Each structure stands twice: as structure tokens, then as C-alpha cells.
């Protein structure tokens, strides 16, 4: 017989246990898939901290930790025991799943189905300690890290944030070691700091220890001082505040101008790519974000801009009569814009998914035309176009590397951002907004649907054409296969991630979706895996995008509030 308090306890204990177990199962699936994807073998020789933790171990151990954290976070009421308990359960189940995999793998040969399920994998997963001891160690690690995560969650805000920040920095610095070392290699004082913090492979143990003191100290200091500094700024007289704002803006601009010199060749190239996608993103944002017309063939305008610039400036063609890229630029941009309007006409009556499918087709048609033998004499067919003119300026000699092109992209992006803001707050911007909301009502408000839609297609295409023209001169040669439909999808993704219709959102989306994967290039094989995980997590936690458009954020927030109200009411 149970006494009544015990009954109560078991009743209230079951739900959190169940939810923690669910999280644990998810953790198990994640760790098993990490293992079977081959990441363990791939990164087993790379250390996060030299001779202490390899990247593959870090991936597994971090999963335990994160699962424990999530499980503890989901508790409706957080007591010390339940928080640590939930974390431990989730971490333990995550590790138990791995142990099951190892056990199973030792009995049957899983290698027939999963190429990566080799004895070497099991050996690495058990920390090379042998099956029984290693498995035990793995289980203990899951249990311990999960419990630790649950315990950390109990800490007050400031130290908790400090610990998590430290963890993130150490893992980040360890994982991105090559990139960081190459970038700051010739920065004098930083170079010696780097030599201190890094060993030949990963962070040095001493470095990691110093970091784990330094970063929390700084984080806590920041937590204390930042609000104080803010109140001090708020107390300043208005003109000084304004000067401060302009000053920091000016500082930002100066930094933007210095970036290529600071970051070196490789990262400048990354920034160029970000710039290219940013241009396209801002263009497509007008069509999809502002006017709500789902265009999946946006790459077509990018291609047209590139081909017009190429055909007009390459000496290989009889039409290559324009020796200077700058003179061909307006023609390329306008041609692309004109095509935008032209392609817009047949799809005027279409909405939603129909529009998406047809525009997708247009994108492919343009690429196939570029590839066709029929047009080969004029646009080069599969051989593409070579020797496209550089954007040379009079009087100054420029050596056209990624660093020089950065400024071209910067200028293009700043221009396009400016134009986007102006458009958004214009009369036309309002018409787009109305069309996005409801075409029929927009018409009933006196908005000319045809003109409004065509302007959106045209304006979006102008930006795409600009991106294409810069792309052409940067690469000097273009081929039809550079204009794959995946580009349209990528551009669409970055808008969605950033937040539909939001201009800063597009910037952040481009950085996150184009910049970040470039930084993770060393993990090339697994790039799209990370990418996919990031997208799913994003859609679950921030469906409105990273920096949602102000009004859209409101809508979703209010919806959420309603939901919680209903939840609490019932």
C-alpha cells in the first residue's frame, strides 16, 4: 500500500520523466545518426582541445549535454531534483542508444547497410577503452553531462550565461581553428596569442583552461557593466546621444571598408559570395517578401544579367563591342528588368503554388536556352562565355581579386538596400503590401493589380540582373550550369530564414546561409546536414525568421499570446 503523499508524487513525477525520456530518445537518434553518417571517423583525428577532446567526441558529448539541457528546460516547474533528474535521464537515454548501437554492431555486421558502422567506429565511440569499460564510460558520460546540464539550468542568469558562453566559445574556437589561424596569421600581437592558445591540433590544454577562466570573467563583467553603461548613455543630453549614434554608424562604415584588408583573401571571397546572394536576396525579397508572389525561377534574371554583360563585353563575340563593363552594366540590368516584366505577363493571373511551378519552369527554360546549340553562335552554348571585361576604372589601376571585388559588392548592396527601404515605404510599397495580403481587396481599393505585380517582377529582376552582371565580371567566364535552379531555392531559403519582407533579415539570412557554410567548409561533406538541422531548428523555434519584418512579428506574437491564453484558460 502506498501512502497518499507518495501517490501524489508518483503522479506528478511521471509526466516529466516521460518528457525527459522523449528528449532522450531524440538525443539517441541524433547521436546514432551522427555516428552512422561517418562524422565520428572523419573528425576523430581533429582535436578541439589538443589530446583531450576530439571533434567527434565533442559532437557526441555536446549532444548529451544539450539533450539534458532541453529536457530540464521543458519542465513546467523546476525543482533542483527534477531538473537534474530530467537532464540525467535525457543524457542517459541518449548515451544508452549509442551503447545499444555498439552492442548490436558487435553481434551483427551492420556495415552491410551502414557503410560507416565499422569496428573502428565502435572503438572510437568507446573512447578506445574496450567494449565493456568504454560502454560504461559512455553511459556515465551521458548521465553526468545530462545531470550537469540540468544543474547548470538551476543557476542564476548571470553565471549560467557565462558558463554557456564559455562552452560555446571554446567549442567554436576549437572547431574553426584553421580558419582563425590563417586569418590572423600576420597580425603581430594576435599571432603570439594564437600560438599560446592553439596547439598543433586544436586548442592547447593551457589555452583552454585560461579561456575557461577569462571568458566567464568577461561575461560576468559584461552582464554587470552593460546595463550601467546603457543608463549612463541614456542620461547624456540628446545631441550627445545623437552624435554617439552617428559616431557608431560611422565606425561601422569604416569597419565595412576595412574588412577585406582585415580579413584577408579567403574571408573576402566568402564576403563576396555573401554579397552576391545578398543582392539576389534583396531582389527576390521584393517579389516574394513585399508583393507575396512566390517566384521559384529567380535565377533566370541573374542569368540574363550575367549573359548580357558577358555577350556585350567578351571579345569572343561579334556583339562584344563594349570594352568596358561599366558601360554594359546598365544595359544588362535593364535587359534583366525588361525580362522580369515580360515573364510577369503570362503569370499575372496565377497565385500561390501555380505561380511557383510556372516560374520554376521559366528558370529552367532560360538555362536550357543558354545551353542550346541553337543560340550557341550568340551566347556560347555549353562552352559559355569567356574573357568578360573587368570593371576597370579610368586613371586607377586595380588588381581584381576578391578583395577588390568586395568593394563592388559593397557598393551594389548598399545601393540596393537603400532602394529597398525607399520602395518599402513608398506608395508602390503599400500597393505591394495590399496585393500580398489580398489581391481582390487590393483591387477594390483602386490598386492596379497588373501594374503593381509587373513592377514587382521588374524591380526584382533589376536587382537580379545587377547581381548577374557583377557575377559575370568577377568570374570572367560564365557557363549555363552556373545558373542552376538550386540558386533560386537558396535565395528563397535565405529570405525565409531571415524573415520574409524584412531587409535586415535578408542581410542576416545571407550571412547565416551563405557565410556560415563557407566557414564550415572543412566539414564540406556534412555541410548540408548542418544546414538542414539548422533550418528545422529555426522553423521550430523562430518560424517568423531571424529578424522578422516588424508587422509580421506582431502577428505571430499575438497569435502566440492567444494560444497561451487559451492554454492557461483551459
Amino acid at each position, binding site marked *: 500500500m502506498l501512502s497518499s503523499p507518495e501517490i501524489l508524487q508518483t503522479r506528478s513525477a511521471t509526466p516529466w520523466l516521460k518528457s525527459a525520456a522523449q528528449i532522450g530518445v531524440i538525443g539517441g537518434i541524433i547521436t546514432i545518426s551522427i555516428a552512422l553518417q561517418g562524422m565520428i571517423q572523419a573528425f576523430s583525428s581533429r582535436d578541439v582541445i589538443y589530446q583531450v577532446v576530439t571533434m567527434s567526441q565533442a559532437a557526441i558529448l555536446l549532444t548529451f549535454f544539450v539533450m539534458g539541457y532541453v529536457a530540464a528546460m521543458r519542465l513546467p516547474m523546476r525543482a533542483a531534483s527534477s531538473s537534474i533528474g530530467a537532464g540525467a535521464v535525457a543524457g542517459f537515454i541518449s548515451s544508452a542508444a549509442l551503447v545499444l548501437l555498439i552492442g548490436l554492431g558487435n553481434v551483427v555486421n551492420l556495415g552491410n547497410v551502414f557503410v560507416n558502422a565499422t569496428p573502428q567506429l565502435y572503438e572510437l565511440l568507446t573512447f578506445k577503452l574496450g567494449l565493456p569499460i568504454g560502454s560504461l564510460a559512455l553511459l556515465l558520460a551521458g548521465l553526468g553531462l545530462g545531470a550537469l546540464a540540468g544543474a547548470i539550468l538551476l543557476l542564476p542568469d548571470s553565471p549560467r550565461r557565462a558558463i554557456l558562453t564559455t562552452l560555446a566559445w571554446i567549442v567554436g574556437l576549437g572547431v574553426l581553428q584553421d580558419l582563425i589561424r590563417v586569418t590572423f596569421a600576420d597580425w603581430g600581437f594576435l599571432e603570439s596569442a594564437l600560438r599560446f592558445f592553439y596547439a598543433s591540433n586544436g586548442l592547447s590544454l593551457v589555452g583552454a583552461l585560461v579561456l575557461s577562466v577569462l571568458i566567464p570573467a568577461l561575461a560576468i563583467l559584461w552582464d554587470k557593466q552593460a546595463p550601467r553603461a546603457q543608463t549612463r548613455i541614456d542620461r547624456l543630453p540628446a545631441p550627445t546621444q545623437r552624435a554617439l549614434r552617428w559616431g557608431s554608424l560611422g565606425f561601422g562604415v569604416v569597419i565595412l571598408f576595412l574588412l577585406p584588408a582585415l580579413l584577408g583573401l579567403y574571408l573576402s571571397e566568402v564576403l563576396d559570395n555573401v554579397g552576391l546572394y545578398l543582392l539576389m536576396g534583396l531582389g527576390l525579397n521584393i517579389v516574394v517578401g513585399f508583393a507575396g508572389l512566390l517566384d521559384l525561377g529567380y535565377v533566370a534574371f541573374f542569368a540574363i544579367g550575367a549573359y548580357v554583360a558577358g555577350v556585350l563585353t567578351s571579345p569572343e563575340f561579334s556583339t562584344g563591342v563594349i570594352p568596358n563593363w561599366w558601360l554594359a552594366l546598365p544595359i544588362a540590368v535593364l535587359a534583366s528588368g525588361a525580362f522580369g516584366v515580360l515573364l510577369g505577363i503570362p503569370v499575372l493571373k496565377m497565385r500561390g503554388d501555380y505561380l511557383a511551378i510556372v516560374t520554376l519552369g521559366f528558370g529552367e527554360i532560360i538555362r536550357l536556352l543558354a545551353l542550346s546549340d541553337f543560340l550557341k553562335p550568340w551566347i556560347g552554348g555549353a562552352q559559355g562565355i569567356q574573357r568578360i571585361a573587368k570593371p576597370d576604372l579610368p586613371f586607377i589601376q586595380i588588381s581584381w581579386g576578391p578583395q577588390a571585388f568586395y568593394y563592388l559588392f559593397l557598393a551594389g548592396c548598399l545601393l540596393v538596400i537603400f532602394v529597398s527601404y525607399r520602395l518599402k515605404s513608398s*506608395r508602390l510599397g*503599400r*500597393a505591394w*503590401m*495590399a496585393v500580398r*495580403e*489580398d489581391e*481582390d*481587396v*487590393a*483591387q*477594390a*481599393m*483602386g*490598386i*492596379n*493589380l*497588373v501594374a503593381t505585380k509587373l513592377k514587382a517582377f521588374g524591380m526584382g529582376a533589376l536587382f537580379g540582373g545587377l547581381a548577374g552582371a557583377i557575377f559575370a565580371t568577377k568570374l570572367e567566364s560564365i557557363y549555363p550550369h552556373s545558373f542552376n535552379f538550386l540558386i533560386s531555392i537558396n535565395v528563397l531559403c535565405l529570405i525565409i530564414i531571415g524573415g520574409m519582407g524584412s531587409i535586415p533579415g535578408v542581410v542576416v539570412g545571407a550571412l547565416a546561409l551563405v557565410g556560415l557554410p563557407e566557414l564550415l567548409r572543412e566539414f564540406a561533406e556534412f555541410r548540408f546536414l548542418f544546414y538542414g538541422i539548422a533550418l528545422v531548428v529555426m522553423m521550430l523555434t523562430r518560424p517568423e525568421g531571424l529578424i522578422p519584418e516588424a*508587422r*509580421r512579428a*506582431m*502577428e505571430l506574437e*499575438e497569435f502566440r499570446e492567444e494560444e497561451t491564453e487559451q492554454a492557461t484558460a483551459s
Partner: protein
Amino acid sequence: MAMLQVNDIHSYYGNIHALKGISLTVEQGEIVTLIGANGAGKTTTLKTISGQLHPRHGTITLEGERIDGLPPHEIVTRGIGQSPEGRKIFGALTVYENLEMGAYARTDKPGIARDLDFVFTLFPRLKERAKQLGGTLSGGEQQMLAMGRAMMTHPRVLMLDEPSMGLAPVLVEAIFETIQKLNQEGTTILLIEQNAAKALQVARRGYVIETGQIVLQDSAEKLRQSERVRKAYLGEE
């Protein structure tokens, strides 16, 4: 000359013959109501007048000028405004922005300001909620906004498609009062309603539509007394 003259129009949805020769007249300063059962073709008539649907046959004139065949945005600027069925306000826009959208096609700034004042005095509720998102308004408020937005187009004829739909009796009362007030301020109104009793109270004349055809037309007074209307639309024995 009649303000709005609809003359024997036939409208189709694909092969569906939805309007089979509708004729109606709205004189300057009148409230005219169009009543009928579900699916009779009331909304279709409105859509045809506003240009969202083009009649295959027949003419529509506004103060003697042909407007059939013109695109919807052109018809709005000619002076036909509407509060559509189901209100259809812009949910993601604020109340103020919704009203602004109504004035989209206009350039006369002083006139717009005057109309905005007018809408806000007519619906003080909207002024209080100017910054609120349209989608978060209550049903009654949304109807006010839809009417206010239509008024912002500065219509010579205002078409209202079932403004009382889904509203509590108190609100229905208020909406019909507003309709009368609007009319007293000089707006000509074509009122589409299923609530025949109420509609025939405020209207001067009325038309009864059944399966795409006008089956009765008379003064509101007479319609209220007609046996057919009383049986079919007023629920009396």
C-alpha cells in the same frame, strides 16, 4: 439620370450562368437593398458592378457613363466603393493603414484628411484602435473598419455586402444606424442583405433576387407587405 444603372447583365463563372439578366437602378441619395437567399447571386451582382467579374451581356452605367468592362481599380476611382462580403480587411495592417489603403488611388490630400476625420467621428472605436492590427479586431470592429475603408475611397455609390453577417443583435442595430447616418450625410448606398427585415427598414426601395434573376422590385414599404417577401424572407406566416 440614375446614379447607377444596371441593365440586363448576364455573368458567368466558367460555364455556370450565375446572373441571368439582372437590371436595377440606384438613384442619387437613395438606399437601395438587394435581398435574396444563399446562392441567389447577390455577391455576384456586386462583383460584376465592381468589375471583378465582367458581364457577357448587358451594360452598367455610372451617371450615364459605361463602366462595364473597366478594370476594378478604374471603377473604384470612378466612384464605386465596396465593403466586401466577409469584410476582408488587411489583417496584418493596422487599422490606420487599412484606412490609408482605402485612399490609395486618391491624391487630394485635404479630401483624404476630411474623410479620415469623418470615418473617425462615425466610428470613434476605430480611432481608439488606430494602431491595432486589423486581424485582431472583433467582428463588429472589423465590419466598421471595412465600411470605413470603403468610405476612404470617397465613393459616390457605396456597396455593402452583408454588413450584418455574424454580428450580435446589438451590433446589427448599430451597423444599420450607421448605414442610415452615412446616407443622411449624402452617400448613395446599395445594400446587400440576408437580414431582409432590417434591410427593408432602412432602404427606400428594394429588389429581390432568386437564382440569378430579379423576381420582385418595389418600394421597401410595399415589399415588406408583399406576401412573397413576408413568407420567404421575413419568416412570417
